[in-house]
């Protein structure tokens, strides 16, 4: 069975001013799999995630060295950032639904990318909400304020919003950290369903979550990768002592 590489990261070093947030990171991210990034706070896993859709560009004084190849093309040299972000969607830690109706939240992406036909938009909104397992809950109130939804629903709406621009990769930055257990389970179920069609990279603080949803796990510490491999190996057969200590909850 051949596994296609979606992202190919070589010698990536990211610094904020004099502070090196990531040091010499090398990694392959495999297509249609879930890759979990774990590690204690401040280890660089979120910084790493944001280099994949260049959201780090917004940070002043940031320095990025090395190469990040997406489908073989370096996204930091001559790659259009708009196109990149369309292909590599992102769900944030705190749900950031726009203060608009549910419908307009989902239709936002397609609209900015030039789709005007009401019929097509209706179709995209429905499909995206279905993919995010939210359709049945909101189909009768698409014109209601999105902020009236519950926390879990808002986060799924954010996911639907990403689905609507038909991405190839979905990045998730601790997507369930603000949610109750029931909503968390719903999101995790979704992640498992979605990986058939999407490559997913998820940052999480929750060890059990990483074990439940991911195929591969990468353990970061102080801006470096300590260990990476199949989730099974990392959790049940770690090679590095520090990985074992972190997994078993001895630090972090």
């Amino acid at each position, binding site marked *: 069975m051949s596994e296609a590489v979606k992202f190919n990261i070589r010698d990536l070093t990211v610094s904020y001013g004099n502070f090196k947030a990531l040091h010499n990171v090398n990694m392959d991210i495999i297509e249609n799999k879930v890759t979990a990034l774990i590690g204690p706070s401040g280890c660089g896993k979120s910084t790493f995630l944001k280099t994949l859709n260049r959201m780090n560009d917004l940070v002043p004084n940031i320095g990025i060295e090395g190469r990040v190849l997406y489908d073989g093309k370096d996204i930091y040299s001559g790659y259009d950032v*708009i196109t990149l972000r369309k292909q590599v969607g992102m769900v944030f830690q705190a749900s950031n639904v*726009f*203060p608009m109706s549910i419908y307009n939240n989902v239709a936002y992406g397609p609209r900015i990318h030039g789709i005007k036909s009401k019929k097509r938009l209706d179709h995209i909104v429905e499909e995206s909400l279905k993919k995010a397992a939210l359709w049945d809950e909101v189909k009768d109130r698409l014109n209601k304020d999105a902020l009236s939804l519950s926390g879990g629903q808002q986060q799924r709406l954010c996911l639907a919003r990403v689905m609507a621009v038909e991405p190839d990769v979905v990045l998730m930055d601790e997507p369930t950290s603000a949610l109750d257990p029931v909503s968390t389970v719903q999101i995790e179920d979704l992640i498992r369903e979605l990986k058939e069609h999407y490559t997913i990279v998820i940052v999480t603080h929750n060890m059990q979550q990483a074990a439940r949803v991911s195929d591969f796990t990468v353990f970061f510490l102080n801006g470096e990768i300590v260990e990476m491999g199949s989730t099974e190996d990392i959790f049940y057969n770690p090679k590095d002592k520090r990985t074992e200590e972190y997994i078993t909850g001895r630090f972090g």
Partner: protein
Amino acid sequence: MIKKYLIWMATIITIGILVAILGYMLVNGLKFVVEDEDGIINFLFQAPKKAGKEGGISTIIANTIFMIVLTLIFCVPIGLGASIYISEYAGQRRSVTAIKFSIDTLAGIPSIIFGLFGFIFFSNYLKLGVGLLSGSLTLSIMVLPTIIKTSVEAINAVPISYREGSLALGATKWDTVKRVVLPSALPGILAGVVLAIGRIIGETAALTFTMGTDYRLADSLSSSARVLSTHLYLLTKEGISFERAFATANVLIIIILIINMASNRLIKRRTIVDE
């Protein structure tokens, strides 16, 4: 202990002044606005006669509206553009310091200096004469700081996460500003515009020699035009009619009260953005 009473007293005096002024005006003038010699609310709908000694203030209200609309046409786009630049595009650039300094400076310049400048620059140097256009251009510079300061505040209050959410979907910066940031900041921006309207309506000194004092209905951009504030000033100054001065003052005060309430409401409100 005595300090406590002194502070209480000072506060009561401050409030007392406000109540006294509003009360005095409403008691003495409201009745005439509601009903003058010729009938109910006739004052608002009849044109002034004999320099305002007789008749109402209909043409003056119309002139005031022309002035407001014209001024907003100039200052809202520029003010909004400047606000967006300052809060979304400028970042750490050094030009921002100069821009912010200029805005603070503009806010501190007295209206009579604006009047003087408008007279020298718009009326004479650009040969626009004394009329609606010169007056409105002068006012639009004067109220720019009001619009910019409230708009910048409103735009900065929009959560960063909205911008991130939009950019992460592949939206351009301008799309993000236009479709997410500005709609979210709209109530605050409108509050700024409403406050600016308050300043426009209340202004006198910047207008007397840039916009003129003709109490007839303005029929062109270069028409000399008397507005509510200049009308009240002249009625009082020339001793033309005190009861009509009272009534005009009441109209002004009621407008200002409404504007105050509206801007407070807007600042507190969060709206749903829909297309």
